[in-house]
């Protein structure tokens, strides 16, 4: 499936203004909470104050007696319908409402359904729950100690707190590499728990029609089709009687992939009561109970020759999964794509050992703007590479260059089994260095040090792997990760495109229309893009892991080409020429050598309904399910300059240069928007975002006063640049881009702060790199003022 035609692009590469914006700037977006149904009830959730406790009793009588309360739902009631537990997207189980124990602070214990949201909240205070607190397990290390309290005593055969043990790579080859090494450099680091925290929280409206038993569930879901199937499995509802509608979504970043208890309870409540039930999560509920991200404890060892050539990589990772293993990720890979940890480097041998442990925290983890845990992998290798460079006395940039996979090595098979489709890492690095003025900066850094100022330069050269996936390797709960596009061309030359993916702000209504425009010559304003309604779109796995363009984008291009083939036959009939004698110029079919004898695509489409060749079926419509032959591998180099205030330990990015290569850019304006958003979240992780817990398992970071998100005031300026290395297997040569910047940039920011202090021997600062941590390091080095 090579990149189509050499014709110059008409619509790809154009910064078409977004079609979706008109409704949003008018305040006419249609988000979940904006939907109101007749006779709708409101649900709110009572959450556990304890991280680990036995439930002795729940008394709901006072709540039930409150005027306006329609029902109080407890785990016991759900258990009668076999709904107290549900499967997670990684095949584990998670409580819908607690029955035996609570296993995290914020766990769902009971729900009130009432005539108004205010009454529903009032009633929560009238529910009395008697808890017997148990010792909380708050770290994966503690979880795996002998004698640690057993968290999942509900699971038969589960005797300890281990979730999984998973290895990747070649142990023997790696051992050999380390035996031969002149030098081994190690880095131990922790990628702390953070949260995607989209500005709109999660929510749903479940509307089960008592007459037909049909359930229409409006839901903030990034993956409505998968959710429909999971609901069929959880609730035992026939799948044709479930319709999931994802309306406009106020950001997702991975948070809106999983199934949450609120969705299930609202649906059960609607089924039992026979009225629509709305549940809107509050921010605290969002931050303490829904899919967190990261929480990986990692150690990497790099085996090197005396010249600095990499021979092998060993990685150990321990993941804090919370009380349920709920990652949305391919079932084959227990730690997601963390084994992409060899990154951009030609590593002949690698071996990765990963373990997951249950703790008394929210279930997870989701990949926050990340392709299945690649963010953690990229962070580790890019931090380790910098440490190694310091240890062997090489410039980190030259050390990278020496060990890069070279442009002529693609397609490149990595030591952990990925086949990188394409890349030119040196070109991206060079461009970043040139743009930031690397050589001069190193001089300036020296001068600054002499003057007593601390400047740091951090670089990260990341490789992403996005677009799951080839169905042979990638699935969610066994459902293969293909995606789909249905294209219908209307008689008057307009189009409707229906997709199985779901935008949360990525601009699909514009980008995907442009793909149709490119292939068929119908302008984007004439292409209506529909997503998110499972009754009206073909099956797809949804939008996350930067997969929409690689999968649904491929499907869109291919179905458009199929329709163009049929259109060509119709055009031949209209022009009384043979198909071979027709040229396609992007908008018209013209007779070779007689360009005036031509039919526009609109004329041909009209003929598909009015003037067909003998024997041809009417219409121009079709569906394509696209199973990509491989992932796509975007890459780039981010370079950051920071300055540290020696008095306070505060650090500030002075420059952020980002070179991204995501192959062919469909809409550069949207691509750049994605990159800037990702850089901001990457900066946030490096500098401030943190979900942490005290020893009793109380979540610290449960609202926006404790969980810090950068505002316009803290967010740095970005300088964006690009190189273009098309994906050789994607129909339009595109790769995903939504997550590159969150994957690549945290390491660049941390590398920069560490670099400012490298001369006094600092090798590591843990994220979030807050000023107190920097000040400690300054103080230890005698640099604090």
């Amino acid at each position: 499936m090579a990149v189509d035609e050499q014709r110059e692009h008409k619509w790809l590469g154009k910064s078409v203004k977004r079609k979706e914006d008109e409704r949003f700037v008018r305040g006419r977006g249609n988000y979940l909470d904006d939907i109101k149904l007749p006779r709708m009830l409101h649900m709110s959730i009572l959450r556990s104050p304890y991280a680990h406790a036995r439930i002795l009793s729940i008394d709901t009588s006072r709540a039930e007696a409150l005027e306006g309360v329609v029902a109080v739902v407890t785990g016991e009631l759900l258990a009668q319908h076999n709904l107290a537990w549900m499967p997670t997207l990684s095949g584990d189980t998670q409580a819908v409402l607690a029955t035996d124990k609570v296993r995290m602070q914020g766990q769902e214990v009971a729900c009130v359904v009432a005539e108004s949201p205010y009454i529903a909240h009032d009633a929560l205070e009238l529910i009395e729950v008697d808890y017997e607190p148990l010792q909380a397990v708050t770290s994966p290390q503690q979880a795996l100690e002998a004698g640690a309290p057993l968290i999942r005593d509900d699971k038969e055969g589960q005797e300890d707190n281990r979730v999984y043990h998973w290895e990747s790579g070649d142990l023997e080859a790696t051992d050999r590499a380390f035996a031969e090494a002149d030098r081994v450099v190690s880095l131990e680091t922790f990628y702390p728990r953070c949260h995607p925290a989209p500005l709109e929280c999660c929510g749903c409206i479940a509307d089960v029609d008592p007459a037909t038993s049909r359930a229409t569930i409006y839901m903030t879901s990034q993956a409505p089709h998968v959710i429909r199937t999971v609901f069929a499995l959880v609730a035992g509802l026939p799948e044709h009687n479930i319709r999931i509608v994802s309306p406009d979504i106020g950001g997702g970043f991975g948070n809106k992939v999983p199934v949450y208890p609120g969705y299930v309870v609202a649906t059960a409540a609607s089924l039992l009561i026979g009225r629509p039930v709305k549940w809107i999560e509050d921010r605290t509920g969002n931050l303490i109970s829904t899919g967190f991200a990261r929480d990986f404890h990692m150690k990497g060892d790099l085996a090197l020759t005396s010249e600095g050539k990499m021979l092998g990589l060993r990685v150990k990772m321990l993941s804090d999964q919370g009380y349920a293993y709920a990652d949305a990720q391919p079932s084959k890979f227990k730690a997601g794509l963390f084994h992409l940890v060899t990154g951009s480097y030609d590593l002949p041998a690698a071996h990765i050992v990963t373990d997951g442990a249950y703790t008394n925290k929210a279930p997870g983890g989701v990949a926050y703007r990340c392709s299945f845990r690649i963010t953690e992998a990229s962070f580790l290798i890019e931090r380790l590479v910098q440490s190694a460079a310091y240890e062997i006395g090489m410039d980190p940039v030259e050390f990278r260059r020496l060990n890069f996979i070279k442009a002529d090595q693609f397609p490149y098979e990595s030591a952990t089994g990925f086949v990188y489709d394409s890349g030119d890492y040196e070109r991206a690095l060079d461009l970043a260095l040139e743009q930031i003025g690397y050589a001069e900066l190193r001089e300036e850094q020296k001068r600054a040090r002499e003057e007593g100022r601390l400047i740091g330069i951090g670089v990260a050269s990341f490789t992403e792997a996005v677009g799951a996936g080839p169905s042979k390797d990638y699935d969610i709960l066994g459902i293969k990760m293909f995606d789909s596009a249905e294209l219908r061309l209307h008689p008057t030359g307009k189009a409707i495109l229906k997709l199985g993916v779901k935008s949360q702000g990525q601009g699909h209504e514009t980008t995907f229309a442009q793909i149709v425009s490119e292939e068929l010559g119908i302008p984007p304003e004439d292409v209506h893009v529909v997503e998110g309604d499972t009754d009206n779109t073909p099956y797809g796995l949804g939008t996350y892991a930067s997969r929409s363009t690689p999968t649904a984008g491929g499907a869109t291009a291919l179905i458009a080409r199929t329709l163009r083939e049929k259109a060509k036959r119709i055009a031949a009939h209209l022009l009384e020429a043979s198909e071979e004698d027709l040229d396609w110029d992007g908008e018209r079919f013209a007779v070779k050598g007689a360009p005036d004898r031509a039919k526009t695509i609109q004329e041909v489409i009209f003929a598909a309904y009015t003037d067909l060749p003998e024997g041809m079926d009417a219409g121009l419509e079709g569906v394509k399910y696209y199973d990509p032959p491989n992932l796509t591998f975007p890459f780039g180099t981010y370079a950051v300059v920071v300055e540290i205030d020696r008095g306070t330990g505060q650090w500030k990015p002075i420059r952020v240069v980002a070179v991204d290569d995501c192959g062919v850019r469909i809409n550069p304006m949207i691509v750049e928007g994605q990159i800037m958003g990702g850089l901001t979240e990457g900066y946030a992780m490096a500098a401030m975002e943190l979900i942490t817990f005290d020893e009793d398992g109380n979540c610290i970071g449960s609202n926006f006063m404790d969980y810090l998100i950068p505002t316009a005031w803290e967010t740095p300026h970005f300088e964006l640049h690009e190189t273009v290395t098309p994906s050789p297997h994607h129909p339009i040569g595109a790769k995903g881009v939504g997550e590159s910047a969150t994957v690549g940039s945290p390491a660049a920011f941390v590398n920069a702060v560490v670099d400012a202090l490298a001369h006094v021997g600092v090798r590591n600062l843990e994220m979030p790199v807050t000023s107190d941590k920097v000040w400690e390091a300054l103080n230890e080095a005698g640099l604090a003022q």
Partner: protein
Amino acid sequence: MKIEVTVNGVEHSAEVEPRLLLVHFLRDSLELTGTHIGCDTTSCGACTVLLDGTPIKSCTFLAVQANGRAIKTVEGLIRNGSLHPIQQGFKEEHGLQCGFCTPAMMLVSAALLEENPQPSEEEIRWAISGNICRCTGYVNIVKAVQWAAANGQSERAQT
């Protein structure tokens, strides 16, 4: 309690619970759903509206406090069927992605332009720093405000 409030130039009188938040009055009673809710600690600014021309967070303001006052929401930005320059600016400069923060961002920016028709980048960043955007990284929001400053005669944020 009975309140009388002018919202986007239209007078409303309503009987409300004393504890009703202004944001719920706007969204649920008046069905002006362009004003959003993103947090429960007055941190995100998604609920921002203009009270007599000044931005306030309507999630931390009681409907009864708005008695006798004039409110402007995103739905009131449009004038005679055409977009306010700030709305145009957000479209032109790709100042929004998911759009959830956008109504509030535009209102804060419109209020800024009223007071300061040619703000510096720093002034813009400061003015919008009570509002979180999780998608854009703010650069294009700043550009959107600059676009509006350059292209629109700022109009008195009539309420």
